[in-house]
C-alpha cells in the first residue's frame, strides 16, 4: 500500500512507542502535580493502555505488513478491522445476555449496570462492524449493502439493542428499569439466532464465517493482534462506562435509613 519498513525491521514498534509515550505522559503529569511516581488508580487503565498499544501495532501490521489478499487485493486489509469488530460485537452482546440472566436470577445491581455498559459498548462495536462491512462490500461486491444473512441479522441485533437502550431511557423507576432492560436484552440476544437462520433461507451470498483455519497463516497473527486490541479496549470502555453508571446509581441512591422512632 505505502512503502514503510516492515514491523520486524523496526527497532521499536509503533505500538511500543505509543505505550511508552502514554506512560511518559502520565509520569510527567504526575510529576507536574507534585506526585513522585506515576499512578494508575483504576485497574481498567492497564487494559486501555495495552489495548491502545496493540491496536497501533495491529493496524500498522494490517495496513503495511500484511500481504495482499489473494482474492480481494488491497481491500482485504479492511478485514483486520472488520473481523475483530465482528468477533467482539458477538462477545460483548453475549456478555450482555449473561449479565441480564445474572440480574434476573440474583437481582444484584452490579449486573444491571454491566448490562447497561455492555449494551452501549456493543452498539458502538456493531456500528463499527456495520461501517467497515459496508466499506468492505462496496469494492468487493460493488454495493454498500446486500441482503445477506449476517448483515441483516447483525443489523437487526444492533437495532434491538438500541431499542433496549431507548426503553431504558424511557423508564424512571430504577428497579423496574433494571428488570425490564434485562428482559429486553435477553429477547434481543435470543432473536439473533432465529433471524440468522431465517435470512439464510431468505437469501445468502456472504462467504463462510472466517475462522483461523480458513485464513492464511501470516494473516492469523495480525487478526489475533487486532482482536486482542479490540478485546482490551472493549474491557476498558465497558469498565469506564460502568464507572459512570455506578456513580449515577450511587447519586440516586437513598440515604441510609434513620433509626426507628418508637412511640
Amino acid at each position, binding site marked *: 500500500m505505502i512503502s514503510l519498513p516492515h514491523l520486524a525491521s523496526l527497532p521499536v514498534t509503533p505500538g511500543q512507542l505509543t505505550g511508552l509515550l502514554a506512560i511518559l505522559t502520565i509520569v510527567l503529569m504526575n510529576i507536574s502535580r507534585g506526585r513522585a511516581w506515576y499512578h494508575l488508580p483504576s485497574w481498567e487503565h492497564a487494559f486501555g493502555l495495552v489495548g491502545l498499544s496493540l491496536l497501533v501495532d495491529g493496524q500498522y501490521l494490517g495496513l503495511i505488513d500484511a500481504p495482499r489478499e489473494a482474492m480481494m487485493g488491497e481491500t482485504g486489509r479492511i478485514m483486520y478491522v472488520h473481523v475483530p469488530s465482528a468477533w467482539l460485537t458477538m462477545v460483548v452482546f453475549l456478555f450482555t445476555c449473561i449479565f441480564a440472566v445474572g440480574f434476573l436470577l440474583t437481582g444484584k445491581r452490579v449486573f444491571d449496570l454491566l448490562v447497561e455498559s455492555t449494551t452501549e459498548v456493543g452498539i458502538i462495536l456493531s456500528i463499527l462492524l456495520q461501517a467497515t462491512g459496508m466499506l468492505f462490500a462496496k469494492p468487493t461486491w460493488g454495493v454498500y449493502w446486500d441482503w445477506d444473512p449476517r448483515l441483516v441479522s447483525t443489523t437487526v441485533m444492533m*437495532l434491538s439493542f438500541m431499542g433496549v437502550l431507548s*426503553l431504558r431511557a424511557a*423508564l424512571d423507576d430504577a428497579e423496574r428499569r433494571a428488570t425490564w432492560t434485562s428482559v429486553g436484552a435477553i429477547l434481543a440476544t435470543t432473536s439473533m439466532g432465529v433471524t440468522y437462520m431465517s435470512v439464510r*433461507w431468505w437469501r445468502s451470498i456472504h462467504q463462510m464465517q472466517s475462522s483461523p483455519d480458513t485464513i492464511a497463516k501470516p494473516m492469523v497473527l495480525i487478526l489475533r493482534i487486532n482482536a486482542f486490541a479490540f478485546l482490551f479496549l472493549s474491557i476498558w470502555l465497558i469498565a469506564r462506562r460502568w464507572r459512570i453508571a455506578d456513580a449515577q446509581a450511587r447519586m440516586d441512591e437513598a440515604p441510609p435509613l434513620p433509626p426507628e422512632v418508637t412511640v
Partner: protein
Amino acid sequence: MNWILRVPAVVSKELLIEWRERSRVSSLLFYSFALLLMVAFAMPDVRMLGDIAGGALWLGLLLASTRSLDQSFRVELENDSLEGMVLWPVDPLAVFYGKALANAFVLILVAAVITPLLGVLYHPSWHGQPWALAAVIVLGCAGIAGPGTLVASLTAQARGSSALLPVLLFPLVVPVVMASARTTILLFQGDPMGQVDNWLVLLLIFNVVHWSLDGLLFARVVEEAG
C-alpha cells in the same frame, strides 16, 4: 399447572372488552385496509401489485398489531387492573397466555377480513392450498402476538410508549414477517421448489421458542409491578 384453568377466563375477559369496544377493532380493520390502498398508490405500476400482495398483507398486519398490542395494555393500565390481576391472584402465566391468545385472535380476525380484500384489490394469482394459507396466517399472527404481548407490557408504562413499541418489536419479529410474507407470496405464485414447508417449520420454531420463553419473562416483568 393450575394457572392453565385461568387462561380461558383471561381470554374471555379480553375478548369481552374488545367486543364492548368494537369501534376499536373496526378502526383497526380500516387502518389496515387504508394501508393496503396506500401501498398500491405508492407503487410505480399496478401490475406489480400481484407480486407484492403477500408482502403488503404482512406489512399491514404488523402495523395493525402495534396499535392493538399497545391498546391491550392501555386498558390494563387505566385503573391498574394489571396489578389488580397479579394481586387477585391470577398467575402471571395465565395473564400472559390469556392476553397473547386474545391478541393473536384479534390479529387473525383482521387478517381474515383483509386477505379477501387483498385478493380483490391486488389480483394475486393463486396456486396454493387454502389450508396452507390459513396455517400461515395463524402461525404468523401468533408469532407477532406472542413476543408482541411481552414487548407491549414493557413499553406500555414507559414514556412515549406508542413509538417505543415498534422500535423493540420490529427487530424481534423480523423472522415472522420474512417467513409469513415469503410463504404467502409462494402460495400466491406457486411453489415449484417446495419451500413452503421449510418456512412453515421456521414459523413453528419461532412460535415454540417465543411462546415458551416469553411467558416466563412476562412473569418477571409483572412481579416488578411496584
